[in-house]
Structures are given as C-alpha cells and as structure tokens.
C-alpha cells in the first residue's frame, strides 16, 4: 500500500485546522464551513478507500493465505528517541480495528461537518460567532482521533489521546462566554488528565519491562517475508509476560507488575471512556454544541478507551485479573448509567448517560472475552457494538440536536408531542431508539446480543446483569422517545414559530445514519474483525436463545415505557413517589459530582493547596524573610555597643582582648 493516502488522511485535517484556524477569520462563514466539510469529505473517501483496500483487496500484506487478517505498518517515522529501544514514532498502522475506526470516525465526522452547516446558524440563517473556529477545532479533532486509531505504538496513542482531550476541551468550551461551558470543558479536561496520569504511568511500566512502545512488538509476531506486517499473537504477549515475571520484582502490592501496568492503562481508558468513577465529565460535556456531542462524546473519542483495551487485548489476556477488573467496572458503570438515564430531564444528559452505559457494555464485552469461549466472541462483539453504537448514538444525538435547534431548549418538558411537527427527526430518532434498544433487525440487536452471549460464556451473573441493563436501556430510550414525541400535544410558546424540520444539511446525516443503523447489523462483522485476525463466522456462534431472551426483555421494557409515557398519565409520578430516595439519588446521579466537588474543592483545594500556599508564603518565605528580620533585630539589639562613650569602648576593648586570651588559654592549653 502506498504511503500517500495514509499521509493525506492525517495531513488534510491538520492542514485544515491550521488553515481555518489562522485564516478562518478572514474568510466568510460559509466558505470556511464548506471548505471544512469538503476537506472532511476527502478524508472520508480516502478512509473508505483505505478500509476497503484493507478488508477486501486481499493483498498479501493485509490477509494471509489462511484468510487471517494481518497488521500492516504503512509507515513509521521516528519522532523522538528516548533510548535505543524506546522510540516514539509517528506512523500509520492498519489492522482490522483501526480500519474499522477509520470508517467510523470519518463517517461520523463528515456527517457532523455537514450537519453543523445547518446547526450552527439560527433560524434566520445567521451563522454563529466563531463558526470558522468551530470547523477548525473539528478538523483538529478529526486529525487527533485519526492519529489515535492508526497509532502503531502506545506512545503515539498517548500523544493523540492528549490531543483529542484538548480538542474536546476546546469544543466543549466552544461557547466560551457561558460560564457553565467553561467549567464543563475544564472538568472534562482535568478528569481525563487525571486518568491519563494512570495511563502514562502504565505506559512507563509497560515500556520498561517490554522494552518497546510498539503495539506490534507488544502483541504481535512479525510475519515472515513481509516488512511491516505482523499478526496478533498470544505468543508475543506471553513473551512480554515472561519479561515481567522474570524480572526481580514481579509482584507489587499483591498484584503482578503487568497487572498493575494494564490496570493503570485501563485507568486512562476509564477516564476517556467515562467509566465510573471517572465518568463525571461526560454529562457536563453536553455543554458543547450538539454536533460535537455526537461526534466526540458519543461516537468516537469516548470509545477510545475501548479501542485501546482492544488494542492491547492480547496483553490483557495474559492477566485476566485486569480483565476481571474491566468487567466489574464496566458492569457497574452500565447499570449505574442506565439507572441515572431513567430519570433525567435534559435529553442530552439522557443520551450522555446512555452513552456511558453503552460504552460500559463494550468494556464488559472486552472484559469477558476469552479465547476459550466462542474464540473471543466478546472482542468482536465489543468492536461491533462500538461500530453500531457510533452510528445510532450519533443519529440520536444529531436528532436531539435537531430538536434542540428547533425548540431552543435541552429540556423534554419544553418538547412533548413533536412527532407531527418534525417527522424526519421523529422517524430517524425512532430508528435510533429501536437500534439501541436491541430490536431485531436494527443494528443494536446484533451487537448487543453478541455481547450478552459472551457474558453468558463468562458467568451467568454477568449475563443476567447485562440483560437487565439492556432492558433498562430500552426503557429509558423509549421513555425519552415518548416524552419528546408523544406524551401530550405540543404547545408552542407565544411569539414563536411552530417547530419544524431542519434544512437538508441536517436531515441528510440523520437519514443516512438511520439507514446505516437499519442495515449495519447485517454486516458480517466477524469476518472482518476478530481479536486475532482469524475470520470468525459469527452466525455460527449466534445464540438464538440469548437473542430471544434479550429481545423479550427489550420488548417488555418498551411496552413498559409505552404504558408509562405514551400519554400523559400519573404513573411516572406515582412511581417516583413510591421510591423517593431512589429517584432522588438517580436524579442527582448518585451525588458523584458533589463527591468530586468535595474532594477537589474541600480537600485538594482547601486542605492541600491553600495550606501549602500559606505554608509557602509564611513558613518558607517567612523563614527567608526571618533571616532578614533577625539580622535587623540583632543589628538593633547590639546598637548599645556603640554607645558613643569611649570608656565603654575601651571596656569592650579590654574585655575583648582578655577574652581572646583567656578563651584561647582554656581551649588550647
């Protein structure tokens, strides 16, 4: 494969960022938007081409005779050399998941670019302030995200990981005059930064023992005869494990060092993918423009954590303890987020918690994946779900964006009964809901079903738990759906136009994504993506009993939602009154934010920073000043020596001379 296209995939968005960032203000809004979109379109085409090449060209560097998909290193440039072995390179790495991610990212990104052309202007067609900047940041994000997924080494991942964090910061804080947006962006950045600390230390540990940053060397074995081509191999991971075990300190605080490294790396993933307890930034991140939420906080960036775990999956397989931790964290998060999503009022928050929950699904899926069971079905399921989720969640977000754009509020109480006014939005949103609820034949059904299957293979507790969460997902999504589009007749406030559907730039992405959500389930994903590249016939492992059960659960949940929310009725408030404590806790998201507020503000800020600053000013600086003060004081104190009386002078003189003599005598003789 030639280098040109991969280079372009990375270069074009970077160029667009610099171009729009430096010169955007000089050009018209429309031009900037169009250029940005065109640029993204180009990348879309190139990425599709690349992915197509990878999956379907059958070239020897991509697939071997046995039909196994290989990893291919397109290029690898030294960027910064630490030591002989530890070198950060910037490269382009193709394997099933990165090719898949290329498709996901460019698709959603392009849709969002297009959509924003309509979204980022008001009803009179006036573009928002900073429109060019918006496109510049979108380009920056696309660049970073693409760089992240094609990274051939973990340090490049980390670099772009940070960059997506920064672009996320910039985009969440896009409405920088709004204090809430500012604080939300800050929160997002700092929480993920904290998680990245773990990631960084994890990298340090891993690279120290592994002696490399390269994924290929960490998890894969080179393929004979083809430069830059390798294949996922447990053997290599075994080798890494052996390096850890053979070293002098294989155990640290009760767990093996490899486990520590992997858990620390997972900590980074938790931050990025909003796993509990580092999830708190994601709901707040909804302060950003909705297309941003769709792109970054639903489809792409937040799944980077999942992606990274998948990247290092063979290593994780070496330490199942780490995988168990992932499973537990994922399961708890999934349940928690679903609980919270059931009672939220702000539609974007519902979607945000739904995102958390769904990502947790993917995590769980990775956590339960074992080669022993269905040849690592969970891995494939996770990636599949990542794919489908990206599509339908982006769809839902963009739909929500359309609603917000039409209504001017995030609150469903201002919506209700919009189905007649905004038919396109309604139908696409419904498709999204069906997909996420896991109704056959929409895409979510397939991916979720496989996740549940793999859970079953892990333990029945996990299976039941995740099925419950799946049911809750269906419930809250349809609660949302009904509350937006049904419940009661829409009341347009005085002096407002009745809400209506949006221009084509916004509708087109909705329709496209809805269409994808309808059919994506039928993609033979197992053929394309599996943990070791081995093609995987997923229909062969399709567990119809699991599917039936989950379908039943979903339908039941939908029915429940229909009963409760289709028409205005007192049932919801009754339920709420029945369990007031639970409702309050859920509504306040189990007070996580308050806890964090307490920790950061009262403990770190008040009890660490302030005392330290005080300590610095008064004790440390005080000591330094004290040298001066004491000197001055002493100077003042010995002033009487110079009394002006010569008789005192000679007295001191004589006593001094005698003391000199006597002390010397006493000391020396």
């Amino acid at each position, binding site marked *: 494969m030639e280098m040109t296209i991969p280079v372009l995939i990375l270069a074009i968005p970077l160029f667009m960022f610099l171009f729009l960032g430096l010169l955007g203000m000089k050009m018209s809004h429309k031009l900037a938007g169009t250029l940005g979109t065109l640029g993204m379109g180009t990348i879309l085409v190139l990425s599709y081409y690349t992915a197509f090449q990878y999956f379907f060209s059958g070239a020897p560097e991509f697939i071997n005779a046995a039909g196994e998909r290989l990893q291919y290193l397109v290029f690898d440039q*030294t*960027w*910064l*050399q*630490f*030591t002989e072995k*530890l070198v*950060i390179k910037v490269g382009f790495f193709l394997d099933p998941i990165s090719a898949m991610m290329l498709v996901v990212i460019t698709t959603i990104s392009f849709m969002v670019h297009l959509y924003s052309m309509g979204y980022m202007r008001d009803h009179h067609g006036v573009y928002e302030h900073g429109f060019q900047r918006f496109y510049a940041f979108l380009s920056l994000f696309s660049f970073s995200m693409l760089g992240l997924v094609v990274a051939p080494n973990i*340090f490049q991942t980390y*670099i*772009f990981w*940070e*960059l997506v964090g*920064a672009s996320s*910061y910039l985009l969440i*804080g896009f409405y*920088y*005059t*709004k*204090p809430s947006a*500012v*604080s939300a*962006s*800050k929160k997002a*950045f*700092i929480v993920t*930064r*904290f998680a*990245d*600390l773990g990631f*960084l*230390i994890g990298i*340090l*540990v891993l*690279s*120290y023992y592994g002696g490399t940053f390269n994924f290929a060397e960490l998890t894969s074995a080179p393929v004979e005869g083809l430069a830059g081509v390798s294949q996922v191999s447990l053997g290599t991971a075994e080798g890494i494990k052996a390096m850890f075990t053979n*070293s*002098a*300190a294989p155990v640290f605080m009760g767990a093996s060092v490899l486990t520590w490294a992997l858990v620390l790396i997972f900590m980074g993933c938790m931050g990025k993918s909003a796993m509990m307890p580092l999830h708190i930034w994601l709901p707040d991140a909804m302060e950003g423009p909705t297309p941003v939420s769709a792109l970054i906080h639903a489809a792409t960036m937040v799944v980077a954590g999942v992606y990274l775990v998948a990247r290092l999956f063979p290593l994780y397989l070496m330490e199942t303890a780490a995988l168990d931790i992932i499973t537990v964290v994922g399961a708890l998060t999934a349940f928690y987020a679903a609980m919270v999503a059931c009672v939220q009022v702000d539609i974007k928050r519902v979607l945000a918690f739904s995102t958390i929950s769904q990502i947790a699904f993917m995590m769980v899926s990775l956590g339960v994946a074992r080669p022993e069971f269905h040849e690592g079905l969970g891995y494939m399921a996770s990636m599949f779900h990542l794919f489908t989720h990206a599509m339908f969640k982006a769809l839902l977000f963009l739909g929500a964006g359309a609603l917000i754009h039409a209504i001017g509020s995030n609150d469903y109480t201002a919506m209700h009964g919009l189905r007649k006014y905004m038919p396109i939005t309604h139908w696409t949103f419904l498709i999204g809901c069906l997909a996420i609820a896991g109704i056959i034949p929409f895409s979510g059904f397939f991916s979720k079903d496989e996740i549940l299957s793999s859970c079953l293979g892990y333990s029945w507790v996990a299976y039941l738990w995740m099925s419950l969460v799946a049911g809750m997902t269906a419930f809250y999504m349809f609660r949302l759906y009904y509350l937006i589009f049904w419940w009661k007749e829409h009341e347009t406030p005085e002096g407002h136009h009745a809400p209506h559907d949006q221009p084509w730039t916004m509708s087109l992405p909705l329709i496209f994504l809805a269409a994808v959500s309808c059919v994506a389930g039928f993609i033979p994903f197992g053929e394309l993506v599996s943990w070791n590249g081995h093609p995987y016939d997923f229909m062969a492992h399709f567990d119809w009993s699991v599917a039936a059960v989950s379908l039943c659960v979903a339908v039941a949940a939908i029915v429940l939602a229909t009963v409760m929310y289709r028409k205005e009725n007192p049932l919801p408030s009754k339920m709420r009154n029945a369990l007031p404590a639970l409702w309050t806790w859920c509504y306040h998201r189990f007070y996580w934010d308050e806890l964090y507020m307490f920790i950061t503000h009262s403990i770190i*800020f008040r009890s*660490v*920073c*302030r005392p*330290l*600053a005080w300590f*610095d000013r008064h004790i*440390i*600086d005080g*000591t*330094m*000043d004290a040298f*001066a003060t004491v000197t001055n004081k002493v100077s003042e104190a010995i002033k009487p020596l110079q009394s002006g009386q010569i008789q005192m002078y000679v007295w001191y003189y004589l006593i001094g001379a005698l003391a000199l003599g006597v002390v010397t005598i006493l000391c020396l003789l």
Partner: protein
Amino acid sequence: MFSNILIYFVIIPLLMLAGTGLCRGVRGIRAVAVTGSIALIALSVYLLVDYIGLRAAGDSAPMLYTDSWMWFEPLNIHLAVGVDGISIAMLLLSSIILFTGSFASWNIPQPKEFFLWLILLSTGVFGFFISIDLFTMFMFYEVALIPMYLLIGVWGSGRKNYSAMKLTLMLMGGSAFLMLGLIGIYYHSAPAGHELTWNLLEIAAYDAVPHGWQSFLFPMTFVGFGVLGAMFPFHTWSPDGHASAPTAVSMLHAGVLMKLGGYGCFRVAIYLMPWAAQELAWIFLILTGTSVVYGAFCACVKTDLKYINAYSSVSHCGLVLFAILMLNTTAMTGAIMQMLSHGLMTALFFALIGMIYGRTHTREITQMGGMMQILPYLSVCYVIAGFASLGLPGLSGFVAEMTIFVGSFQAGMADYLGGEGSLRLVFTIIACCSIVITAVYILRVVGKLLLGPVYDDHHRSLTDATWWERLSTATLIIAVAAIGCFPNFFSNLIKTTFTPEIFTVLGM
C-alpha cells in the same frame, strides 16, 4: 582570540552596550537592541548548523570550538570557551528571548538605562554558557544576576523594592555557597603532581576530587545553582521577583536566567562530582521532587497572574533539576529540553502577562474575565502558552516532560530492581502527578481570565496586540511549536553532549 566564533557571543553584547550607550534617541536604542539580538540569533543558528556538521563528521570531543586564553596566570585561570549541544541550545534560547524581550519592552520608560542593564544581563548569560572555566563561568554568572536588582527596582511594579532586594540577596546567597564550592573544587581539581585547574573538561577528565570533599562540595554547588533554579525551599525569590519585574526582565529571568541554575547544576555539580551526585542525589531528589508538585499546588490558589506563573516555573524548573539528578541520558536530555521548553513558554507567558497588564493595569485574575472577546490575539497566545505548559503534544512542554518521565522512570526502576531503594521511582510518580495539577491551574487561569463573560466593562475598549507584540509572541510560539513538533532534532543535538567521555565520567 577573535578567530573563535564563541567569543562573539560576548563581543556582540558588548558592542550593543557601547551602541546603546552612544545612542541618543529611543529609536536608535531599539535599533541597536533588535539588530544585536538578530545578530546573536544568526550567530547561534550558524553555530548550531556548524556544530551539527562537525558532529556528523565524527568529531567526538566533549566540547567543540574549545579555546583557552590565559588570564590570571598564577591561579591558572583561563578565559576558556567551548560548547556542546546543551550550550548551543541554551545560546539559541537566550538569543531568541533577548530578541523577543527587546520587542516586549518597546515602549519602556528610560530606554537607555533599561537596555544597558538588560544587555549587561545577557552578556553575563552568554558568557556563562560559553565558558568552560569555572572562574569565568562564575564571574559571568554573577554579572547576569546583579542587573536584575536595578531592572526590577527601577522598572518594576508592586512591591518592587522588597522583591528586588529579596531576589538579589537570595540569588547572591546561593552564589556565596557556589563560590565556596568552586574554590573547593579548584583545590581538589587535579591529582597530586598536576597543576590545579579551573577548566571543566580537565577537572572532569582527572576526576580527582576526593569523595569526602565531593560530599561537601557537591551540596554547595548544587544548592548554589539550585537557588537560581528555584529549588525548594530556596524558591521564594521567584514569585515575588517575577511579580515585580517588568515584562522583558521576567522573560529573561524566567526564560534564561533560571536556566543558568539547571545548566550549572549539570555542568558543575554533577559533571565534576559524579560520585557525590550518586551518593547524595537522594537529598536533592526529595527537594526537587517536592518542588515539582509543591509549586504546582501553590500555583493553584494564587490569583496574581505572575505569581501563578512564577510558581509554575518553580514546578517546571524543579523538574529540570529533578531530571538531572536521575543521572541517565534520557532524563538529562529531557531536563535540557525542559529548560528550552520552559524558557520559551514561560517567556511567552510573561510577555503576554506583561501585555495584558499593560492594558488592564491589573494582574488579578479575579479582576478580569472574558479577555478572549476583547483581546483575541493575546488570549489565543495565552491559551497556546497554557497548552504548552500543561504538556500538550505538539508543543514543547510535552516532549520535554515525557522525556524526563521516561528517563526518570528508567532510572527509578533500575534503582528499585537493583535494590537501591525506591526513592527515584516514588518521586518520579509524584512528579508525574504534576501534569494533572498543572492542567488544573492553567485551565483555571484560562477559564477565569480569558473565557467567560467580560468582567469589567471598562476593558471592552482595550485594543489588541500591536505589531511588535505580535512579532514577539509569534516568534516564541513558533519556537515552542518547533520544539514540540520536531523534538528529535533537539533531542539529538542535546544527546551529542553525552559523548562516551561523559558516560565514563558519570558512570552512566
């Protein structure tokens, strides 16, 4: 004497001094300053290119362009010059910051005196970086320190008298220890039968300082330079000093002068006394490791922009010293890169703070807000500087910090696995934590100062950057980005310093 290129790093500033002294009008003075600093930049770039060429051609001497002229014959004091990659990087840094600093003080009152002192200061800086003779090094070091007093005292703001005095006294206090250390080194510089020498390279080659003396002289020199490197607990001059200093002085001081500390620690303390550096590193590791997080925590609660940045400098410079003490190539490379990076970005910070202060007449972030709407150019620059400071990839901070962390971790693990205690490891991890805290205080400032609604409506009438301000900040941003995007170039440049000779000297 004039055939050596390095000597021009002192001659040009001296010519600038003369030129400034002779000029009458402010235009002339500006012209001298700008011309001179451009000449210095050109010279350092030429030196850089030539140096790389020589290294590529296989010249593996520890220092190139070495030359030595006898000065005080009976004491064997020479005017000895020589550079390696580190010095070249520092020279480049200094000339860039002098250049931008000249622009940042475009409209300073009493320009003649100001530039005289400023250039005198940079004479000291350049002299320090080219010297390889301990005596001349020390002399230039002190030359660079004392103009600070008048620069802050006359052109400063706030509690300038107090700050100027404190800064000068504390730094001179450090140099008092340093002087003792240097003289001590001199008297143990050569084995019996050889002539005592002040020459760094010769001392390092002899490696004759007895261990007992090393454990006395190492702390002396390390603390001596460490004070200037804002090592905890001797950093307190830094917040006050920077807060009171005029813009260009803050830039030069934080950007270049504080680097003298780190450079000196490396070049003198560690290079000449490797044994003590290994044995006594733990004390200073604790101090510097503490100062990394400590400075960051303190910065979190400050509301004066310059104080915040000063504490941030404490944290970042702490990282420099911290990394130097790791005694491994990677960490040391990282330390030097951090010096470069911190020099540039902190200069950028101080330039911006000065520009904002010049407009709003306050540095309290509680008194400002929404600057992004009023001063978009400066605000964007500030955000970039902030990102550089918190270590965003693509800007200089990231590469430096990562190099340090990787290197330190290697050293820490080597210690840990080698059964030599886990101090390095623990403090590496503590130092890593600074990346989070840095993010906290940087974003806090960005949030309060630049974003959000406009705090004071009087600020709405402010005008954005003038051309010289744009030039000054843009230069720095380009430099920051250049290091951030092409780190390997700088890393390799610095690594050329770690010739095999140093490895044997340091026992690395």
